[in-house]
């Protein structure tokens, strides 16, 4: 018996995702390529606080009321975030102090990087223990290798973290799509594959351009953050544009795409948060945390409006907490 199949091409929501992503990236890359410094200032002003709030909302929804057999994992995760964030802030704000020589700062910074790597490897190991037939003890040799790199080439290591951070958001989205919208997975992989193409186009167009002006304190901070001092042979125009482009995608993912994929991440659906809605939860604390988060986001906008440069510095110092908080939740999703 013969079966006749007709393959008809149908436009699905996954196609809209891919098309929307590509068009958004093309527009973003064009505008950022032309106005890298201006777009750096604008994107941080508009989205920095908002994306932190959305991340916090997402993590709150993923935090179980009872940790059960994941108790050790969450304790190591939360403990690591607190210890590493507070030691980072100490390093950041106290390094100009008379107690710190540039030498001791370099040693403490490398030690912090090592602790950060070992913390992540421990989280991987603990997560591997929870998964059936999994052993993720490879995380330890990998951590030793990465820690060696953090000591050998500290400046490149720090710069790598700046550029890798936006991809963590994309990894989150990938895991979330696998869980809640598997039909979008192929389209999303296509979107991810397009990012190196956009960066290559930026390289072709901008690598030969002269360096961006860095005579003001703010412009110097922006170019330095993108790695112009560490990579003096590469045009700072390209570096800043690439960094802003990746950061913009990361903002876009947290603010728009993750709530689109996971209804539990929609900000106003507080009943989706176990800590808020389930019996034995802490609804008042959840409400208070969100109220404080909203106030901080508004305060950040006000700070940017009053003194952009100082607020930017303070924001990036405290932003380490959200960078750290991403790891336990991401590893838990693997």
């Amino acid at each position: 018996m013969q079966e006749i199949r007709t393959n008809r091409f149908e436009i699905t929501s996954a196609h809209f995702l891919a098309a929307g992503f590509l068009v958004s990236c093309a527009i973003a890359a064009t505008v950022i390529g032309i106005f890298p410094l201006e777009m750096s200032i604008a994107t941080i002003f508009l989205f920095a606080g908002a994306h932190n709030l959305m991340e916090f909302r997402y993590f709150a929804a993923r935090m179980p009321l009872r940790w059960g057999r994941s108790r050790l994992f969450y304790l190591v995760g939360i403990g690591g975030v607190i210890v590493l964030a507070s030691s980072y802030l100490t390093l950041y704000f106290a390094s100009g102090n008379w107690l710190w020589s540039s030498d001791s700062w370099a040693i403490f910074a490398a030690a912090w990087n090592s602790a950060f790597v070992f913390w992540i490897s421990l989280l991987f190991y603990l997560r591997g223990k929870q998964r059936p037939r999994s052993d993720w003890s490879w995380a330890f040799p990998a951590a030793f290798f990465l820690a060696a790199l953090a000591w050998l080439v500290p400046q490149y290591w720090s710069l790598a973290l700046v550029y890798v951070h936006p991809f963590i958001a994309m990894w989150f989205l990938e895991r979330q799509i696998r869980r809640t919208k598997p039909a979008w997975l192929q389209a999303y992989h296509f979107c991810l594959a397009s990012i190196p193409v956009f960066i290559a186009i930026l390289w072709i167009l901008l690598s030969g351009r002269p360096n961006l002006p860095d005579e003001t304190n703010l412009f110097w901070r922006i170019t330095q953050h993108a790695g112009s001092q560490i990579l003096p042979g590469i045009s700072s125009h390209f570096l800043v544009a690439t960094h802003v482009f990746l950061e913009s995608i990361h903002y876009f993912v947290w603010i728009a795409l993750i709530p689109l994929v996971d209804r539990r991440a929609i900000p106003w659906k507080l009943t989706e948060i176990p800590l808020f809605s389930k019996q034995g939860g802490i609804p008042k604390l959840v409400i208070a945390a969100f109220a404080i988060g909203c106030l901080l986001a508004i305060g950040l906008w006000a700070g940017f409006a009053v003194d952009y440069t100082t607020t930017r510095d303070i924001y990036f110092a405290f932003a380490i907490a959200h960078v750290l908080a991403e790891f336990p939740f991401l590893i838990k999703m693997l």
Partner: protein
Amino acid sequence: MKRVIYISLFVASLTLSSLADIARPTETPKTKNPRAVSSSMTIRLDPKASEAKLLIPKSQLAQLRAELDAATDDTATAGTFMQTQTIVSGLFLSLAFVFGGIWLIRPSKPTIGVRAAALVVIFGGIAATANLVLANVGPPPAARSITSKLFDRKLFTPYRFASGKITIEGSNANAIELIVPDLPESTPADE
């Protein structure tokens, strides 16, 4: 017990920001960059010289010494970090190989595919590093000694720097003088 450990860790993390109760030194060290000493220099090709020689007038040496004495000496601290950096990175790299090796050869868990992937990554990494090292080959021998050959732009351009042994001496002259061995067209330094 665990609770005590976690609370201790948390408290310890907070104490980092207190900077301890150490009194401020009576005099904060002031950083002062040494001033440049302006001078003039003569470069002389000498067929009899076997090694480059830099002759600095004694008066200018004294001036340089005075400037250096007034400046903060950062060299000791820079050396400390480099030393720590080498020791710690070497230690971590060794531990990475030890733990990685144990993980690779242990009898049970990783499948053949995982082991093969790990080996590919390790050997790929080593191959890539070897490639980098080879690509970082130094300048030709002629650019690794300070001789008259350096005045040939073709030799100097690819790397835009040259280095080599030099003798520094004090002199009674008024200007700095650089004596460069004047080599004939073909010498062993080319090879």
